Structure formats: structure tokens, C-alpha cells
């Protein structure tokens, strides 16, 4: 069973062919490093999977069932979660409030429905524990380190038992120590059987954590191979076009 299968996906914006016949299959618990230069079509591909765009051509199936996403919420309902580049966190709210934002837990006092703060703190604490992250559910996000913020954003994806998590440049703007934390978080997702698509420019991060590398160049897939059978040099060549196809 594949978590996600793309068959011959193309996307055209007017005269521009952003993606050209992309086929890709992702298995449970697999970490895919999606690489490519600016404008290679990484973001477009991710936005199609996440339901922001619809492909001009091609088919997409989640858990071997064909799907068509018209809005991001539909992708989420099908177990596809996104960690946005800027993490989409509210600094003024607690970690738990951010995890549950838009999916709050409630309880009833007579006829009145109120937020169940205690349950949300407890549940969020459990998620952070699973991620082995020292993140306190009651702390405000504005007081948190980059790694903790990532943990909050990733914990959000674990609420719904996501099958696939798309991560857009999670290590682009954080310190070396925090990068290590994020990579650990990704490994914990993999241990839970969650497939991860990691979009990144940073070669060392991708090689540290990914099982498979997919390289896009000018909207076409030019490589799709196990990390162990590739090298940073080869991938650099593939990204720039020095190596045609691998």
C-alpha cells in the first residue's frame, strides 16, 4: 500500500509549464527528500498535494484511493498535513492552543460548550513526549526556541493521525542545534509510520534523515533513488543540470 501515489501530474500556469508528468509513490514511514533549484516546481508539487492547487493533468491517490482536493481542508481530512515554512503559529497563544487551533476540544457545562483546557494541555503534553521534545504545553509560543516551535507545528499534524506530512523548508532559518532537533522530530514521525516529504535546500539535512531523494528540474523529475545509492555531489549535479538524469 502506498500512502500517496502521483501519476503523470502536470500543472500549467498560462504559458508556463510548471510541472511535467510527475509520477511518484510514497510508502508508509518513508522520508522523501524533495530537492531542486528555485523554480524547479517543488512548491507547486507540494501545493497540489496539499490541495492549494489542482493539477492540470494527472491522477492522485491517497492510501490507494483516488482523490481530488479542492481545498486544503480536504487534504487534511484525507490524512495529508502540512508544516508551513513560517509554521503558521500564533505567538500570543500557548503551545497547546496552537496545536489545537481550529480543532479545539470542548466540554459541556449544562447547555454551554466551553474549551476543555485541561484535556488540551494533557493531550499536547503527550504529543510532545512522543516527539521527545522539551516543550511545555502551557508556555507561550513567543518564548520558545526554533526547535520547540517546530515541535508545536509538528505536534499539530499528529492530532489527526496523519499518514503524510509535508514539511516546507523546516530547517531554512534556524540554528545548527535546532536543525538537529528538527531532524530528530522527523525521525520520530517516521517511527510512528508517518511518511514525510521534506522540501529542503540543505543537502546535509536531507542526507541525514531521508530514505529516498527526488530531484526536480524545470518541472520534470530527473532522479528518484535511495539515499544510500546517491551522493551529495550527484544530487548537486542533478539540481544544476550538470548531470542530465539519474
Amino acid at each position, binding site marked *: 500500500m502506498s500512502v500517496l501515489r502521483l501519476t503523470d501530474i502536470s500543472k500549467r500556469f498560462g504559458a508556463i509549464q510548471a510541472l511535467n508528468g510527475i509520477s511518484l509513490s510514497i510508502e508508509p514511514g518513508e522520508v522523501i527528500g524533495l530537492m531542486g533549484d528555485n523554480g524547479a516546481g517543488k512548491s507547486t508539487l507540494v501545493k497540489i498535494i496539499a490541495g492549494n492547487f489542482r493539477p492540470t493533468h494527472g491522477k492522485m491517490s491517497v492510501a490507494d484511493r483516488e482523490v481530488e482536493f479542492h481545498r*486544503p*481542508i480536504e487534504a*487534511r481530512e484525507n490524512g495529508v498535513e502540512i508544516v*508551513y515554512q*513560517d*509554521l*503558521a*503559529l*500564533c*505567538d*500570543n*497563544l500557548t503551545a497547546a*492552543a496552537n496545536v489545537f*487551533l*481550529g*480543532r*479545539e476540544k*470542548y466540554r459541556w457545562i449544562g447547555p454551554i*460548550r*466551553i*474549551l476543555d483546557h485541561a484535556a488540551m494541555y494533557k493531550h499536547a*503534553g503527550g504529543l*510532545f*513526549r512522543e516527539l*521527545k521534545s*522539551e*516543550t*511545555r*504545553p*502551557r*508556555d507561550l509560543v513567543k*518564548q520558545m526556541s526554533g526547535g520547540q516551535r517546530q515541535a508545536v507545528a509538528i505536534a*499539530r499534524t499528529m492530532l489527526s493521525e496523519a499518514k503524510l506530512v509535508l514539511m516546507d523548508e523546516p530547517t531554512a532559518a534556524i540554528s545548527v542545534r535546532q536543525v538537529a532537533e528538527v531532524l530528530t522530530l522527523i525521525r520520530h514521525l517516521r517511527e510512528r509510520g508517518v511518511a514525510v516529504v521534506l522540501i529542503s535546500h540543505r543537502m546535509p539535512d536531507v542526507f541525514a534523515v531521508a530514505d529516498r531523494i527526488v530531484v526536480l528540474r524545470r518541472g520534470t523529475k530527473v532522479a528518484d533513488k535511495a539515499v544510500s545509492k546517491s551522493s551529495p555531489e550527484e544530487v548537486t549535479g542533478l539540481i544544476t543540470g550538470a548531470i542530465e538524469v539519474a
Partner: protein
Amino acid sequence: MSAISTTLDETINRQTHGPIGQLLTKQTFWVFIASIIAFAALSLSTDVFFTPSNLFNVARNCAFVGIIGLGMTAVIITGGIDLSVGAILALSGMVVGMMMAADYPIWIAAPCALLAAMACGFFNGVFIAYVRMPAFVVTLAMMSLARSLAMVLSGNQMVYQFGVDHKKLVALGGGSTAGWFTWLADVVGTDTSLGAFFTRLSELIYIPNPAIFLAIFALIFGFAFRWTRWGRYIFAIGGNQKAAILTGVPVRQIKTSVYVISALMAGIAGILQVGWLGTITTGMGLGMELIVIAAVVIGGTNLAGGSGTAFGAVVGAVLIEMIRNSLTLLGINPFWQGTFVGAFILIAVLFDSVKKLKQDEE
């Protein structure tokens, strides 16, 4: 392994600040302390401040600002602003006054006034949330619009008589708990022991009705901010609107709702104020929006959005009214009032800016 998981558990379960440490960082708390000190100082230094009739006045006057301030707090938490509350107060007061003068009973006139106010707020909300015009501009336009409508409605006449329910309206805005207790005593019979008890209470406790409204609304808003979905979402929108949209918060509906609620609070204050004044004038609520915003900001709500409390709005309103009242009592030229209020706004915001400067340095 067990040692590691214990420490991780401990870290996850630990609280960063104790409740007292947290309190000391809150601007609202310090403004509250300042209000108590001012209250004590005024009570000791003048003979006229700590008298039943003056306290009654202070409580009633700050209630109007506080009631509108609660709605304004919701608006400001989402990162918006509502400049139209003074004009909406006037419109609501005018609708209730003119309708009652035309012999409509209060239970028809008051809901109509509130509907008119909410319609203005809905108009604000739609233009801000759906058409995405800046709140400042939309509510500035509404400020002009609502006041103009109020003046058209008035037909440029003064009204002192509010028809069949004149007494009810005046009691609602100008009355106090004394009236309620007297009414209760009448109901159970003044010659019974319970009736005598109520009569006694009516002689002892004078809380103006607008202040009771303020207390009830403050509790409702405080509850809503902390315990409801709506409260959670207004803070989320003020903190990071893009994140709120991405996580599926119904941002446009929630944003519209805060302007409707702000207008509703202004409408309620309008009805109460007509009852208190016993007349309607087109100058009602003139400049009110600025006093309300000042009170809310002094109470610790950040104009940048994302933070604010119901208690802060009440404390801010009380502090401003005490300043105004005491300056009058001390025989200081009333033209100085603006200077003091302005200085307090600066001090309150300065507090926040200094905190931010410190954080940036770290």
C-alpha cells in the same frame, strides 16, 4: 531510559512562572494598584470624594465607558479598531428616544435601537472582513454616517418626554439597586418582615444600574475570552491572522462578529445614557470613542492586537473616570483633564514598550 523520560516529563509538566510572578508582569495589575492608591489618596485628601453621592456618580460615569470598552477590547484583540462607537451610541439613543416619544413601549423601542446599532456594526464588519478595507477607514466612515443618521432622525428637536414608558427608561439608566429593592419590598409587601428587609437594603446599597450592567457584561466577556471558541479565535486572529486562516479558523465570520458586538455594547450604553440624562441630544457620545480606546489601552490591551482582558477594560475606565472626577473636585480647571488622560495613555503604552525593548536586548 527511565531517568531520561522522568526529566522529560518533568520539563513538559513544569510551569515557567508561578502565578504571582506572572501577575507582576501584567500591566493591568499595576493599573489596578494605581487605581486603588488613587482611590485611597483621594478619599483621605478630600472630604468630597468618599461620599455616597460622589462615588455613585463615579460608578455610573465609568460604566458607560466600561461597557463600550468591553466590546472595544474584543475588536482590538483581533488587531482592529472601532472609531464609530460614539456615533452608534448616539444613533441607538436617538432611536430609542424618538420611538418612545412616539409612544412605543420600551420593550419595542429598546430592541429596535439595539438592532440599528448592530446593523451599523455588521456593516463595519462586512467591509472590514470581507471587502478587506482597513478598520480605521471603515469605522471612521461609520462614525460620520451613524451620527448624521442620528441627527436626521432627531429632526433637530430636543425630547424630554418618552411617552408611556418614560418612567421605565429613566429608572433603567438613572436608577440604582435602591429602586430594585424598593420594588421588591412592594412586591412582597412593605409590612412583612421580608419587605422590611428589602426596604432596609434599599436604604443601604446604592449601585447605579449602568454599573450593574458593566459588572454583568465584564463577567460575560471575561468568560467568553477565556472559555469559548470565539474567545480563542479572536486572540488567534490578533496573533497571526494568516496562521488562523491556514488552520481553518473562520476568520471573516469572527471578525465581523467583533464589530457587531462592539456596536451592540455601544447601543446598550446609548439606551442607558438616554435614561440617565432624561433627554436626547445629537451631541451624545461625541468623542466617546477616544475615551474608550484610552481606557482600554490604559487597562493593558495592546493596540497591535493579540492581547487584552475584560478586567483591564473595566480598570481602565475606572481610572480615567477617577482622574476626571478628582480634578473637578480639587477645583482644577477642567481643561487640564485631557492632559492627565493623555499622560496616562503615554505611561501605559510606555510600560509595554520598555518591556519589549528589554526583550529585544536579550
